[in-house]
């Protein structure tokens, strides 16, 4: 049965996807830490054609004062897509989507950062999407986690953003643009790989319980792989100065 919209065929006859990947294969991921000298911590994540840059500043005094919390720090996330990040120019500035992603990202990060160490403070996280090809919120979360670690912010774990979805009634890992646009469901999650906890979960479309379980299985498997790349990026940056 054709499960997408119109006549778009998202799976080849041999079961592979349009870009040749298997259903449980993610796009190639590369991560670089410490790319922005002015930031306290920074990282760039490339996942397929996605390019996400994250910069972390702080902890600093939280302004305006009404946002201060006497017992913990607040995490101020600003997710933004560059006007040139997609084929159609995006109008610069905040919009409904970027506000939503900023909010959910901040909540995901607050659950891993030891915010109680810095009362009344603010940790500023800027996520800039330079190129977008579906899955930018996940790439942004991954970049933010590496940037936070690079800035020396104490955290319980390195959170990883990954997504699975459903195309043509088949659960697949890491949707690309066509699969995201014409597929049936998208399940982005933020996973803490060492503890197996989920810090963030959204679902667009419908998945049966079995499909959901399979999608989460793919997500956990991918999270482990991305986590290794994150650790490697941090170690590569600093191992050069090892005694």
């Amino acid at each position, binding site marked *: 049965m054709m499960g997408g919209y119109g006549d778009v065929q998202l799976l080849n006859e041999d079961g592979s996807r349009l870009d040749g990947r298997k259903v449980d294969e993610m796009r190639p991921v590369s991560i670089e830490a410490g790319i922005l000298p002015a930031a306290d911590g920074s990282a760039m994540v490339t996942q397929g054609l996605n390019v996400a840059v994250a910069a972390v500043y702080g902890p600093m005094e939280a302004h305006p004062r009404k946002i201060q919390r006497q017992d913990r720090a607040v995490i101020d996330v600003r997710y933004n897509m560059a006007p040139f990040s997609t084929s159609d120019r995006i109008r610069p500035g905040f919009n409904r989507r970027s506000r939503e992603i900023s909010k959910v990202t901040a909540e995901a990060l607050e659950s891993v950062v030891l915010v109680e160490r810095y009362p009344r403070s603010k940790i500023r996280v800027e996520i800039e999407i330079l190129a977008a090809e579906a899955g930018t919120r996940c790439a942004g979360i991954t970049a933010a986690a590496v940037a936070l*670690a690079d800035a020396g912010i104490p955290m319980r*774990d390195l959170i990883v953003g990954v997504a699975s979805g459903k195309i043509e009634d088949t659960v697949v890992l890491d949707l690309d643009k066509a699969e995201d646009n014409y597929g049936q469901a998208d399940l982005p999650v933020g996973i803490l790989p060492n503890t197996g906890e989920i810090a963030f979960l959204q679902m667009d479309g419908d998945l049966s319980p079995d499909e959901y379980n399979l999608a989460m299985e793919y997500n956990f498997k991918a999270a482990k792989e991305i986590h290794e790349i994150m650790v490697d990026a941090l170690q590569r940056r600093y191992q050069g100065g090892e005694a």
Partner: protein
Amino acid sequence: MSQGQTGAEQRLVTPGMTIGSSTGKRAGSGIIAENETFVATQLGWLREINNTVSIDPIHAAYMPRSGDLIVGNVAEVRNNLWFMDINGAFQGLLPMSLAPWKVEFGAARQHMDVGNVVLARVQEVDECHNVVLTMKGVGLRRLNQGTVESIPVQHIDRVRGENNATLQRLRDACDCRIMVGENGRIWIDGEPEGITWARKALQMVASDGHTKAFEAILADMEQEQKLKGDA
């Protein structure tokens, strides 16, 4: 499975990395104990001294503690107090009662204005990060000459060395007065050539102080400076 390891060899650990069993050991800075296992919370070098496992962070913000000697900049002046930029998340507050002069209400600006640099001590830090500074104490004063060099806070110990050995070598080599603030700011006063050398040496100590090549580099720099002085 333990990804990091304790012992003589230093290992770079990342947040969330399992260090090993917590049995019989204490968790130091950068480490939390979960289910009898140590977990790293910061990016840094793993260290175990006297049964305490801790992390030397690669990046860290200055967290003021009572008694710290700091180099501060006056950021704001009120009628009866000064706000100091102490290179931390929050400004420090210096009330006129803790200044080394007798200050009349409304005359704070006559003693110190925005941009002045001071050597002060942290008097008190409360749980909400309110920092009170004092300038009452031996050697605490407004710094009218010299220059201030900033280095990352976590590298201050490298500049001092064991029993201030490295710091003394730097002082001797450049013939300058050097005061190290816990907040990553270092005051240097002396001849311009000496100050230039000291600034270069401080940055080198901060970046390479933990490497095997450090001793040789510092010795070369000292020799170079000595030859300049002899010439």
